[in-house]
C-alpha cells in the first residue's frame, strides 16, 4: 500500500475539521457552566464570623479588610458573668487584588467563607470591585452544595450552612 504523502494527509485533516461543527461558545448569548468547585467569587456567612482575622492575616495579597468590636452579650445562665462577643463592623474583599488562591476560605475555622463559581461581576469602575459585607452575603445564594467524593475516598462531605 503506497504511503499517502503527508501533504495530502494534512489537507484531509483540515477538510474533515471544516465539516465538523465548530466548538465556539458564543458568549454572551450562550454560556458554559463552570465546575461546582470553580473559584469564581468568595461568599461570606456573616453569622459564623467571629472576627478572628485569620483570613486577613493569611491572604498573600492582603486584600481582606476587617474591622470589628467587642460587645457585651447577656450571660448564658442567669446569674453568670456577661460574655464578650465580637461583632463584625466591616468585612471587605478587594477583588482587584484577590488572586483567587483560596487560602482564606481554607484557613477559616468557623466555616464563614465559601467559594462560588459566579464569575460575572466585572465593573466599569475599579472601586466597585471592593465587595462589602452585604454583597459578600448575597453571594451565599450562589454557593453550590459540596459534591460527593469518588469511590475510595475517606473524606466526609461537608455541609454549606444556608
Amino acid at each position, binding site marked *: 500500500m503506497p504511503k499517502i504523502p503527508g501533504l495530502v494527509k*494534512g*489537507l484531509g485533516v*483540515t477538510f474533515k*475539521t*471544516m465539516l*465538523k461543527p*465548530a*466548538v*465556539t461558545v*458564543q458568549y454572551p448569548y450562550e454560556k458554559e457552566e463552570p465546575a461546582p468547585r470553580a473559584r469564581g467569587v468568595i461568599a461570606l456567612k456573616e453569622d459564623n464570623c467571629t472576627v478572628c482575622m485569620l483570613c486577613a492575616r493569611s491572604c498573600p495579597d492582603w486584600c481582606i479588610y476587617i474591622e470589628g468590636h467587642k460587645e457585651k452579650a447577656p450571660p448564658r445562665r442567669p446569674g453568670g458573668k456577661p460574655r464578650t462577643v465580637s461583632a463584625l463592623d466591616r468585612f471587605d474583599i478587594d477583588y482587584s487584588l484577590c488572586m483567587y488562591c483560596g487560602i482564606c476560605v481554607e484557613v477559616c475555622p468557623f466555616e464563614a467563607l465559601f467559594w462560588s463559581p459566579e464569575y460575572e461581576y466585572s465593573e466599569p469602575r475599579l472601586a466597585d470591585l471592593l465587595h462589602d459585607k452585604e454583597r459578600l452575603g448575597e453571594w451565599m445564594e450562589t454557593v453550590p452544595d459540596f459534591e460527593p467524593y469518588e469511590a475510595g475516598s475517606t473524606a466526609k462531605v461537608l455541609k454549606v450552612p444556608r
Partner: protein
Amino acid sequence: MTAIVLSYWQQTGIKVGLTLLLIPVGALILGWTFLLKMMSHMQSRLGPMDAGPHGVLQLVADGVKFIQKEDIFPDRADRRVFALAPFVILMSTFLLYLVVPVGPDLVAEDFSTGIFFALAVSSLSVIGILMAGWASANKYSLMGGVRAAGQLIAYELPLVLAVVGVVIQAQSLNLSDIVRAQANGEIFGISFLGNPFVITQIVGFLVFLAAVQAELTQTPFDMPVAESEIVGGYQVEYTGFRFLAFFMGEFGTAFAFAGIAATLFLGGWAVPGVDPDSNVMNVLGPIALFVKVMFVSFLIFWFRFTYPRFREDQLQKFAWTILIPISLVNILVTMVLKVAF
C-alpha cells in the same frame, strides 16, 4: 433592439469604473468566504458572527476602520516612495482585471495577446513590494522586501511556462479564444462537456496553482510576510488606508488569478451544453465563472491554511529544480501530442 452607441470615453469610463468597483467587491467576497469563514471552520471555530448576519459586514467594518486611521509615516522613511508603494500594487491588480473575459461580450479589453499581457502586468507588483520594503526604513521590511523580490521573480517562470501548454492546445493567446476552444472542443469524440484544459493539462494546472500561491505570497510561500518571524515583512510599517490597499491588492489579485486559472483551465464563462455565442451566456457566463473562481480560490486558501511555510532557499529550490523542469516537460509532451493528433 437598436444598439446603444457610446463614445470611446464613455465606454472607457464605464469599463474603468466597473473594474475599480470589482476589486474591493472581489476582495470582500474572497475575504469573507475563505479568510473569515472557511479558515475559522477549519480551525473548529465560528469566526466573526456579530457584524451583520454571520459576520458578512465584518470586512466592511474593517475597511471603514482602516480608512479613518491616521496616515503615519515612519520618521526616516522615504515619504513619496512609501506613499506610492501600495498603489503600485493596486495598479497591477487593476490591469489584471481588464483582460479576464466574463461573458462572450463582457471583457474590458479583448487583446489578441491577452494572457501574455496578464502575466506581464502581474509582475509589476514586485516593484511595489520592493518600494515598500526599502522605503520603510525598517530592517524587517528590508528583509521582507528582498525575500519577496527573489521569490516573485523566481516564480514568474513556472507561471508562464504552465500557461504555454494551454496556449499550444488552444492555438491562441487571446483569452476569449481560449474559452471558446474549451467550449467547442471535444474529448475523444465526447462533446457535451467541451474540452476543459484541466483534463489534458492537469500538470500545468497544478504548476500554475503553485506558482499563483507564490505570486500571492500565500503560505507555504509567504516568506516575505512571515508573520511570526519578520512580523509583517514589507507591510510592517503600513497602517490605515495604505494597509487596506495592500490587503485589497492581495485578495483582489487572488480573485483575478483565480479568474485567469478558471479561464485557462476550467473553461471560463462557458457552461457545458449551452452555445457559447448565444446571448444568454452574457447573464449565465458571469455566474459560471464566479462558481469556478470560488472553486480555485478554495484550493488556494485550503493550501494556505494547512501548510507551514518554506524557508527561502527551499522555496527557490522548489521553483528552480522542481516546478520549472516539470513545466518544461509538460510543454514538450503537449507539443508532441498536439502535432501527433
